[in-house]
């Protein structure tokens, strides 16, 4: 069954996006790429060091689509500068905008993110903004030229799952863009849940990078995302509060 995800003119067969942070060694990255089957990988520009012999980029297989992120940006202007730096250093024109003004919970600043989206989309970037799941903000990001929106399931690194489930459901229903659930997913079952809800993809890092066996966990997420997507396409049966009788009460009406 062909079910590609199209973003920025690129056709992706995997709906699992992964990260590069928090690993005990960079040499795990290509192994995780392989085990996860992922095609898109995000990398914080702040960590990229072309002068180093252990540069993170050198560990990423060339077949991957790089999604540089603006981690560390506190304003739209900083995010824009980081995105331009990433582009100038040959990391392509995709960017995950991450503007965070709150170092306690690491929650994104939607207003600044919208501004950065507008500027970078007009410069030809394929913009994927990381956001708090808010419908009006998501619609403004779409208007500003975002290629997808990336609402959080829970705060970054918490592994708490889809605490924002109701808001994600609304975004998926109302925003005519791929909705990629980013951050907070701690278990494969939660990734499957996001996909069943109709998310276009999920992005996760901590759950794989801090697992006891990152490769096995990467492959578990690969299966969970695929299963969740299949379930979504198959159309889940309705959930009922009460049991439904196999002999209906109005059956006598014929």
């Amino acid at each position: 069954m062909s079910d590609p995800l199209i973003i920025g003119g690129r056709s992706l067969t995997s709906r699992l996006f992964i990260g590069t942070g928090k690993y005990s060694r960079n040499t795990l990255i290509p192994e995780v790429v392989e085990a996860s089957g992922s095609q898109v990988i995000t990398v914080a520009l702040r960590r990229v060091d072309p002068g180093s012999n252990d540069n993170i980029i050198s560990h990423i297989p060339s077949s991957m689509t790089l999604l540089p992120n603006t981690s560390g940006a506190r304003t739209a202007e900083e995010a824009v500068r980081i995105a331009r730096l990433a582009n100038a250093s040959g990391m392509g024109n995709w960017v995950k905008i991450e503007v965070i003004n709150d170092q306690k919970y690491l929650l994104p600043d939607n207003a600044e993110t919208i501004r950065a989206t507008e500027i970078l989309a007009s410069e030809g970037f394929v913009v994927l903004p990381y956001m708090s799941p808010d419908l009006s903000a998501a619609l403004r990001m779409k208007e500003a030229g975002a290629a997808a929106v990336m609402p959080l399931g829970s705060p970054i690194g918490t592994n708490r799952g889809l605490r924002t489930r109701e808001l994600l459901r609304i975004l998926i229903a109302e925003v005519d863009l791929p909705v990629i659930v980013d951050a907070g997913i701690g278990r494969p079952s939660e990734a499957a849940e996001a996909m069943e809800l109709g998310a276009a993809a999920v992005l996760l890092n901590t759950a794989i990078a801090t697992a006891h066996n990152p490769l096995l966990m990467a492959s578990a997420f690969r299966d969970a995302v695929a299963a969740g997507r299949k379930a979504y396409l198959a159309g889940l049966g309705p959930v009922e509060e009460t049991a439904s009788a196999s002999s209906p009460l109005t059956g006598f009406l014929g």
Partner: protein
Amino acid sequence: MGFYETVQRLGQQTDTERWRQYTKEDVKRTLRKEHLDERDLQILLSPAAADCLEEMARCARRLTRSHFGHVMQLFTPMYLADFCINHCTYCSFSSIYDFPRKKLSPEEVRQEAKAIAATGIRHILILTGESRKESPVSYVKECVNILREFFSSVSIEVNPLSEDEYKELKAAGVDGLTLYQEVYHEETYRKLHIKGPKKIYRNRLDAPERGCQAGFRTVNIGALLGMNDWRQEAFFTAMHARYLQDKYPECEIGVSAPRFRPFLGEYNPEHIVTDRALVQIILAYRLFLPRAGITLSTREPSALRDRLIHLGVTKMSAGVSTEVGGHTLQGGTPQFEISDGRSVQEISGMLRANSLQPVFKDWDILETV
């Protein structure tokens, strides 16, 4: 209102003798809580918690790995100048000591930078004594201009400055401020700082806040442990960090737990901080401030540092000299004696052997992009 008002308010409650009332059950309850408050912090620093270090360590490690991953940020301090007009009883750079003072020339800064950068280090922390004549803001700026060629992050540890001066340095490319209060207990502070502008307790206490207002990306604070009751000092440090986090959520607040080290003079700390106490302090910081960076310096011996890396620490110095020009010149006077003289390569190897990735670069100077 600044943190001084909080210090005054808390001053009346920090009779740490009263913390003996807390029990192991209190500690266990605190460890189950999601958000810790002032009382929880007291509990974690109390004598009862000293018997629960293993449980605290497990929680601290889980939090650290989940928020920061299996990584350790490395940096190197670089001493630019040791001229100082202050007399502080515990420091070799004190104005009363007669030794040949030194400040690096631009060319020497370049050579020193080159030597440090060759070890792979990309984050540098620059230090000076306090002397508006020998190492004014304009001198620091001149050095920063050179250092930007070699490093992706430049932080300062210099005497307290005004908000405008911090802004000036930020515009020059400085992204982080480290400033230790040394002692939060005001009366003890006065006794230890005998001469010079550093005597003014409040000017130092408010400086990290001025750094936040100036827009530094990271602000790192701490108390020099050993000069006063460590429970009290750790309590004030963590409360100060929480105060700054609450008021300046955009700024990354970090804490350090430096223990007093031997230096040129005779001062001996009145309060011994044992290894167990140091561990308790670091664990309390991590649990109370789950997302704060925690820095561990080479004041601690290598064998102990190798253990502390699993308990909440996120940043370590490596390849350290506390002398002006210590990486390229001869004959300087160290500010204090370090205990871990390992090279960057050796520290990196130790981290890797412990399944931690040494991180050299975690920022880009954006000022001119």
